[in-house]
């Protein structure tokens, strides 16, 4: 009995929080638009038989007929991938520095990484508008030290989107890497150096492989939410920034086409399932290795 409960609880969790919402969205993606409340047909009001008969894959076919959608998926994948790499490049040295810092500093440094979370995410992204705009802090600073003579246009471009994503998701990269590096046994580095490794090759041959799990966890934690990101591209990006989150918003709000919007969401989920499964596997392997 206890065993059953132990197994059932996570599955009920999965059912309630993932499967049921997904099935609702999937059902809408097979419906047609209608000028009604809610704006699609058929609904349960029409009876179960009519509901099943009224469903088809028309909307998925539609997604292949217009190149907007695959371009948006590709562009989102590209932006998510590059920002993950950038976040890793910025985050790893920070995590490394934290782990190498004297013990009594570490709590403070950790605090500094977490502190921005105490402010609303939206307000922090808005702050970047003030920093990056043509009359913003960054341009004024660069102009005043004479580095540039014309203000740089950063806001409303993809560059601003990258800055926004890297800034927002940086802690998700730093924390898992830090957790790995902090547990690392320093004597391993000494041993490597005793055996003739230079500092740099000791870093590559010992430190990096030992923090691999943290790197993988961090990359997934950044990549997955960045792929479907909506707030950052719509506030910092320009009209040339093509991301699937924005396309989804437009289908939903401008076309009032819930079925097509749902189809876009279902495909986004299918794309995300691959990295999510890989991530889960990695976590499991890690847990087993430690057990």
């Amino acid at each position, binding site marked *: 009995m206890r065993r059953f409960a132990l197994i059932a609880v996570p599955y009920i969790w999965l059912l309630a929080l993932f499967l049921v919402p997904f099935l609702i969205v999937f059902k809408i993606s097979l419906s047609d638009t209608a000028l009604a409340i809610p704006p699609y047909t058929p609904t349960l009001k029409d009876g179960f038989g009519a509901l099943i008969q009224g469903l088809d894959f028309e909307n998925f076919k539609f997604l292949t007929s217009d190149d907007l959608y695959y371009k948006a998926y590709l562009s989102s994948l590209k932006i998510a991938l590059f920002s993950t790499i950038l976040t890793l490049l910025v985050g790893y040295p920070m995590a490394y520095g934290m782990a190498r810092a004297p013990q009594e500093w570490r709590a403070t440094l950790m605090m500094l990484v977490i502190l921005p979370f105490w402010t609303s995410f939206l307000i922090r992204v808005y702050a970047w508008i003030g920093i990056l705009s043509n009359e913003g802090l960054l341009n004024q600073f660069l102009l005043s030290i004479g580095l540039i003579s014309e203000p740089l246009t950063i806001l*409303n471009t993809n560059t601003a989107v990258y800055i926004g994503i890297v800034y927002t998701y940086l802690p998700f990269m730093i924390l898992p890497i830090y957790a790995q590096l902090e547990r690392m046994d320093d004597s391993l580095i000494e041993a490597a150096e005793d055996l003739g490794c230079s500092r740099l090759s000791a870093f590559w041959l010992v430190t990096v492989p030992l923090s691999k799990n943290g790197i993988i966890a961090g990359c997934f934690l950044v990549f997955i939410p960045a792929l479907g990101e909506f707030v950052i591209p719509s506030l910092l990006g320009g*009209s040339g920034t093509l991301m699937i989150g924005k396309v989804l918003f437009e289908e939903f*709000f*401008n076309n*009032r086409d819930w079925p097509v919007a749902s189809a876009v969401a279902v495909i986004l989920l299918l794309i995300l399932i691959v990295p999510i499964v890989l991530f889960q596997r990695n976590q499991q392997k890690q847990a087993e290795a430690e057990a």
Partner: protein
Amino acid sequence: MIKALLTGTAAVSLLAGMAMAEEVRVYNWSDYIDEELLAKFEEETGIKLIYDVFDSNEVLETKLLAGGSGYDVVVPSGTFLQRQITAGAFQKLDMSKLPNISNMWGVVTDRTEQYDPDNAYSINYMWGTTGIGVNLGKVREILGEDAPVDSLELVLNPDNMSKLAECGVHFLDAPAEMLPMALKYIGEDPDSHDPEVIAKTEEVYAKVRPYIQKFHSSEYINALANGDICVAVGWSGDILQARDRAAEADNGVEIAYHAAKEGAQMWFDQMAIPVDAPNVEAAHKFLNFIMDAKNAAAASNYVYYANGNKASQEFLLEDVIGDPAIYPDDDTLENLFTTTPYPPKVQRVVTRTWTKIKSGT
């Protein structure tokens, strides 16, 4: 103990009941009311007013069609209202609760009947035009003294736009208004529902697209007033608010608004009560309050939009009622056009065309 609990529950439900009866939730456009009016309504009626804002008809429509928006009064524009009435999103107004309806102006109600037959579901809040706002100083400095500030040539002719790009140009992010404007410019029927005709706007915008800094429907008020941009295609009253803010700030920025001489779109923002509004009684009180001559005048004097309230006109400031940019003279009025809602298939073409125009994809 049980008794105490029961009394407690009764008290709580009583409180909840009172709270339900004494509030009204209004969802209106941003920068669209004199906030003193909100306080005045609460004072006069004792009803708690919860005021929330949006900046696009599309967002409002999605909330309405999802059902259970929780709002008691919403303010869609005419074409959107018409479609939402068809979808069954509104309830008929109870005219017996709206004695101030006699204040309304025939010139406006005649026109809003095309969206809301017999004006059974809505009252007019404000109406205006979609046109061009310019920072006169900067635009004349760039294009010369005879810059075509009252013509679509200014914003849709690439020769002018390429020069204006350096000082910043914003366009509305509202396809239902921007596409008719481009159609007017190339001499087509602005209310065309023919996908092939609508597609022609792509070419018009492709030529000026590189010079447009941003498509946004509310940022331009501040941007114009601060001098961050020098041209905006926007809504009449918003641009006039920018003019006013710049004058108040005394920052040397002089803003002017013109409905394009080729013809400009006229729109009507209508107040209506959603079919599932929780506080219907209070919603009627709010509509009646807005239709009071002095209140309607106060709103127009603040937001620089014309209202559909005849009785309010004697209380309007001279620079509102006397400004042809707000209350157009007969010649301009003749030059204004209205549009009708797009059917769903055409709506998709319109949105897709607009996405292509904005993103180049």
